[in-house]
């Protein structure tokens, strides 16, 4: 037989094609399978790696975020001893969603009126039928009320906790602290000035430490408040300042407000008389005039003699004195008896230019330097500043400054003549004492000590003395400018004091706006009768807290001034 034809052995071409296709398909399938496996393995590997990663470094499901540290919703404000003055608490808020109320609206309105008697049942009913989605019924509700409202069982009532600003000391230092608006942002005082610090999550964990000392603030507010009541004054202001650092230890303005309920405060209560209000503070300005004159060489000795007639006719005006000398008097006597006539002559010798320069250096022509936003701009005669205005400014009329500015001026005068801007924050690493600028010479500062102590020992400020605390200071009774005219009967009385005078450490400035005479003051409305006792009482209370020990045997060097005081009255 013939050899099998290759054609018989060889597969059929279609069959061959089939085998080739199969192989191809198989290869593709392998490829796909492999790809799928790789993908699967990759996913598994990713999951496994992820699990391993989480096991090693990851958080677990039960982790509670945000509770690892106690950061309040708004920073605390504390006083210099760490006593809280403002805090944010979780308060209960009761609100209502009228659209979600399912019960009897009239009955609910009556029950609400009984529980929350701020509105009548009619008003609540109108509220429920108004169709508006949401009403606040009570913010900062007491737990009892919350329980009672919850017991009503109405699903439309919303009871929830909201952060709320609380001022534990209520009215204490209200004008310093300010208050917050309904959104929790500062709307006055420190709350407004440091709003960013208090609301920034990175800083609000640390409380804001003020220079205020709540105990001193309380003593000042209490004594000033009782004087304001006693003399039926329309307002009052007080400042206690550290002479060396410029820290404001207490600052108050009256009538005060309760920052917990700022909405109820009248505009008069919201007005900060200590920093925003500017007043003509009268004779409390005289020490500056004398110090200027000493520094510029006009006064060479406190025994320098001026002619002090009963009234001084000058530049077409007449200057009067409350205790006219009617003779020649020394600078010591001018200060002691607060003579306008004497001081006017000293101011006249200083002259306009020098006076302006001094006042500028002391910051009496600008806004008061303090972190608060409520800052008043001092008023001065401006373009009308003539020789007579120089004289009146010399004894404190015709220039209006804030009580804080006056305190700052006294602090400058008795901190060896160096000006440090006042601050409301405690001095420390975050608020270091800036380098001051020299205004008066050390010698002048030293001489003024005995001069002001003399005023309290023998002069118009006798009632400001607190035995042992060596208070020195100056009374000021200024006529109030009403409708462009100086009133003869309505005064602003002030007292600026420094203690202890042998080594000045603290300044206290108190002011009463429109005090009235009482039986005890024998009809007088001058500063020596109404504000000076406030200083005496306040200093007796605060000086021991400030570490000033009373000593009946210490005095500044009175030998500097006493030889120049002519004593005939006693």
């Amino acid at each position, binding site marked *: 037989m013939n050899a099998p034809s290759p054609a018989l052995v060889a597969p059929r071409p279609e069959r061959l094609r089939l085998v080739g296709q199969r192989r191809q398909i198989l290869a593709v399938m392998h490829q796909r399978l492999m790809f799928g496996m790789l993908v699967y393995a990759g996913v598994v590997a990713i999951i496994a790696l992820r699990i391993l990663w989480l096991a090693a470094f990851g958080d677990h499901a039960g982790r509670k975020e945000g*509770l*690892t540290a106690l950061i309040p919703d708004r920073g605390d404000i504390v006083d210099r001893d760490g*006593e*809280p003055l403002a805090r944010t608490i979780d308060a209960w808020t009761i609100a209502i969603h009228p659209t979600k109320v399912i019960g009897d609206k009239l009955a609910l309105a009556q029950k609400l009126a009984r529980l929350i008697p701020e509105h009548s049942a009619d008003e609540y009913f109108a509220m429920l039928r108004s169709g508006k989605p949401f009403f606040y019924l009570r913010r900062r509700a007491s737990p009892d009320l919350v329980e009672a409202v919850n017991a009503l069982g109405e699903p439309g009532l919303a009871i929830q906790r909201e952060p709320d600003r609380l001022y*534990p*000391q209520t009215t204490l230092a209200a004008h310093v602290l300010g208050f917050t608006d309904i959104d929790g942002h500062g709307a006055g005082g420190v709350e407004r000035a440091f709003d960013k610090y208090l609301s920034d999550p990175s800083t609000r964990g640390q409380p804001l430490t003020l220079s205020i000392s*709540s105990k001193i603030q309380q003593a000042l507010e209490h004594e000033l408040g009782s004087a304001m009541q006693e003399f039926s004054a329309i307002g009052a202001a007080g400042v206690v300042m550290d002479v060396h650092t410029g820290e404001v230890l207490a600052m108050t303005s009256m009538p005060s407000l309760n920052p917990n309920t700022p909405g109820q405060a009248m505009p008069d209560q919201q007005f900060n008389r200590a920093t925003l209000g500017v007043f003509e503070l009268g004779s409390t300005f005289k020490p500056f005039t004398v110090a200027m004159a000493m520094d510029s060489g006009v006064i060479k000795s406190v025994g320098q003699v001026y002619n002090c007639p009963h009234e001084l006719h000058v530049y077409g005006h007449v200057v009067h004195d409350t205790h006219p000398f009617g003779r020649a008097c020394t600078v010591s006597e001018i200060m002691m008896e607060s003579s306008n006539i004497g001081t006017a002559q000293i101011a006249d010798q200083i002259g306009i230019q020098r006076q302006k320069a001094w006042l500028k250096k002391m910051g009496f022509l600008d806004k008061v330097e303090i972190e608060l936003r409520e800052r008043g701009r001092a008023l001065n005669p401006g373009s009308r500043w003539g020789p007579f205005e120089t004289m009146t400014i010399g004894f404190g009329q015709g220039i209006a400054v804030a009580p804080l500015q006056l305190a700052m001026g006294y602090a400058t005068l008795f901190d060896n003549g160096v000006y440090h801007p006042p601050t409301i924050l405690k001095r420390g690493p975050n608020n270091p004492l800036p380098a001051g600028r020299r205004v008066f010479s050390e010698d002048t500062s030293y001489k003024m000590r005995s001069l002001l102590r003399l005023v309290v020992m023998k002069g118009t400020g006798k009632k400001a003395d607190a035995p042992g*605390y060596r208070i020195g200071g100056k009374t000021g009774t200024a006529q109030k400018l009403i409708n462009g005219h100086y009133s003869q009967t309505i005064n602003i009385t002030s007292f600026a004091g420094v203690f202890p005078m042998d080594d000045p450490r603290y300044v206290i400035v108190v002011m009463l706006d429109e005090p009235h005479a009482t039986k005890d003051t024998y009809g007088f409305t001058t500063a020596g009768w109404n504000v000076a006792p406030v200083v005496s009482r306040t200093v007796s209370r605060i000086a021991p807290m400030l570490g000033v*020990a009373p*000593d009946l045997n210490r005095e500044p060097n009175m030998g500097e001034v006493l030889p120049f005081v002519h004593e005939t009255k006693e």
Partner: protein
Amino acid sequence: MSVRNFGSLFMVASCAGAALGCYLVSLRVASERASLEDVETKIVLAQRDVRTIQTEIGTRARLSQLERWNAKVLALSAPQADQFLKGSFELAKLTTPQHKVDFGAPVVLASAPAPATHHAPIGEAETDDAGAPVPVAARGMLHEASFKTDAGMREVPSKPAAPAPLAAVGFKSAENKPAAAAKPAPKKAVDKTGLAAAHPAKAVDKHVLASAKPVTKPIRLAKADPLAPLPDRHLSKSVSKTSKDQHTGR
């Protein structure tokens, strides 16, 4: 079946075991961490509660409230300057120990015999051992006036009254015997003047007295110093008997 065939199985098993072990460690760590976080959370919650309570207490005991309570109830006021002390010395001055008489304590008498002081001659100041003048007791400076007129009478300078038995003053007990020596004893005739001269019975120089009689009324004087303690009767007798000897010892 050899061990070699199970090699891969062992490998897998050991791998699985190691992985399980690692996982267990990791689980343990995770649970520890979770419990730590629970504690941290509890701390924070406790801090929040503390803060809430502090705020509440601070609000209830706010300074204005304390001031009101003080005005109504306590009425505390600021301290006065003289209420402050400057140091421990001033504090110590406030507590001066009080002199306390303990009546129950045994009576210790000042019974030491008077030192044998040498009496200086009349008119001279007494001196002590060192020769310095001894201060004379005020009582010893007293002079009794004695007016004598008789010309033949011996000029008798009035002698200081006998010093009172100071050591025995105030004590009257029987134990007082040693002090008896200090009592005003009858004096020797030489020294007998003034007070002693009025004793008619014991006076040696009777004539002096007798001669004085017509001039002045008889001077009646107390036999003994009225201020001195009453002597025991027989004791005084014995004393009078031995007065001469005793006097030398004075």
